[in-house]
């Protein structure tokens, strides 16, 4: 082997090893984050965290029961807005629309998908908060719902289009109308994919903080109604983490662990829902 060839092989081996190191570093970040949160959050989490209200500033103890309920309410509202629009819009795109309309809708959805979450917050503020003159759960749910639409829409559409043509034709050959074909053949055939799409969209907005800052705001007590501001887990993590109090930091770690656990579990479930071997289309 000539020295030149030996050198080239050496370079090749070295650079290929380095790419492996890069991959290792990237993946280990996930486990670092997970480990750190489990360690810090695990020490801090207790029953009070789930059942008690936050204590007044300066007192230790208390929990985030109101934020957990608040997050649940916000996510319910978001799903009520985002899932129907995403799902039915996708049916229109995949089954009814001509190519020009479809292009416009897809373009709008992709544009919406790329909008920074803080800008969505500004939009929800000027559309819902300003007219009602009140920070509210509704406004927060609206902001999160908006963010669910493009993810649900685009992935659902892909899964609907992936249903084999033969199935459609078979249904129609039996005399089924178009909507009956959609409702009884196409959607059931694609339901795993659609469920995955909805779950991923849900997981994405579950951790969103920026759009809630000036829509749902925050609340140290139970939120009295849909038109009142509410606490939410992500916003609590933010305010508690940047506060100067040791005990609040402890609770921020606990909340972080709960939130990250929720998001990761939904993500894993969503991928498990899909049959093996089918790729999840990226949002």
């Amino acid at each position, binding site marked *: 082997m000539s020295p030149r060839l030996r050198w080239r092989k050496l370079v090749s081996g070295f650079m*290929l090893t380095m790419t492996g190191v890069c991959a290792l570093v990237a993946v280990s970040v996930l486990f670092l984050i997970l480990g750190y949160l489990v360690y810090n959050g695990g020490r801090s989490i207790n029953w009070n965290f789930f059942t008690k209200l936050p204590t007044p500033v300066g007192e230790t103890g208390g929990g985030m029961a109101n934020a957990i309920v608040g997050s649940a309410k916000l996510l319910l509202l978001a799903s009520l807005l985002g899932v129907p629009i995403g799902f039915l819009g996708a049916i229109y795109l995949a089954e009814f629309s001509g190519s020009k309309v479809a292009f416009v809708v897809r373009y709008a*959805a992709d544009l919406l998908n790329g909008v920074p979450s803080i800008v969505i917050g500004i939009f929800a503020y000027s559309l819902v908060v300003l007219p009602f003159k009140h920070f509210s759960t509704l406004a927060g749910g609206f902001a999160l719902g908006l963010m669910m639409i493009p993810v649900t829409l685009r992935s659902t559409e892909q899964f609907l289009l992936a249903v084999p043509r033969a199935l459609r034709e078979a249904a129609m050959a039996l005399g089924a109308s178009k909507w009956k074909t959609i409702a009884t053949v196409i959607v059931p055939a694609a339901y795993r994919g659609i469920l995955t799409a909805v779950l991923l969209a849900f997981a994405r907005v579950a951790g969103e*903080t920026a759009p809630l800052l000036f829509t749902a705001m925050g609340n140290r007590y139970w939120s009295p109604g849909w038109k009142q501001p509410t606490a939410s887990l992500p916003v609590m993590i933010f305010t508690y983490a*940047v506060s100067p109090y040791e005990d609040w930091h402890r609770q*921020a770690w606990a909340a*972080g662990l709960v939130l990250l656990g929720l998001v990761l579990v939904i993500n894993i479930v969503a991928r498990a829902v899909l049959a093996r071997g089918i790729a999840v289309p990226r949002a």
Partner: protein
Amino acid sequence: MAATTTVPSAGPVAGSRSFLRRLREGDEIARLITFLFAASVVLVTLLLIFELWQGSALARHKFGLQFFFTRVWDPIAEQFGALPFIYGTVITATVALVIAVPLGIGAAIFLAELAPARLSDTLEFFIDLLAAVPSVIYGLLGFLAVVPLMRDYVQPGLKNTLGFLPLFTGPAYGVGFLTAGIILAIMVIPYIISVSREVLMSVPRDQREAALGLGSTRWESTWKVVVPFARTGIMGSIFLALARALGETMAVTMVIGNAPTISASLFSPGDSIASVIANQFTEATGDLYLQALVELGLVLFLLTFLLNGFARLLIVITAQRGGETAHP
């Protein structure tokens, strides 16, 4: 393709006319309802642009283009200039890309070219999970774990070794451009890896085989043939990551230090467009203050809009090139 399969009515095979009509009416209703939902997506997007434009009218008229070149951000004197925030956004995004691009592309090469399919898919699964970690979690870790680490070890270390560069001077606060850039890098790496991996995998097999057949080593075939072939798509993934980095809010807000400064030092606390909106929006008193913040939102929207569009174009171009060569 399936989008254009309009059924030529239910067909004249059987049944009475009224029955057929009812069927067709059912279809028409379903079509109308789903159309309304699809149209609402377009409507909401247009409304978003309109609201941002309308909501910043006062500030746009008062400051004009000067808005982008003014250093002063003084809510009390009602003087608003976006320059410090634009600077902070650009600097943090640059730091993020300097770290994330080599790491991300390296990892993508490993996943696409070297790793066996099973390992590659497993790692990609973890990378997807990493992309799903919420921004505020990065902020929490960044603020409570990374900031002290930067203050006590990394920044003094950099000052001692590279302190002759203006980049690494000044007091070590822990928070600042450098910390924000590092956190951002971690956040955008998954996007670079996922997209680049896919683009690299779409490079036709004959390209690799030809290079190897001519006697190149594995690395030479990867670096001199496969990567250049996928270059446009990899650029696309970088622009996608850049768009994410510019719009990222929570993590940056928590570690950037929140001060409208322009400083050559990466140790200096600063502010990005997104972080100033997050911090000051609820406190904004007076129409002009609020509208100046909305105008910042408009700037951010336009920036990410352009970058996203450009990125998607690049990725589509590469995918098509790969397809063409594979099936001549």
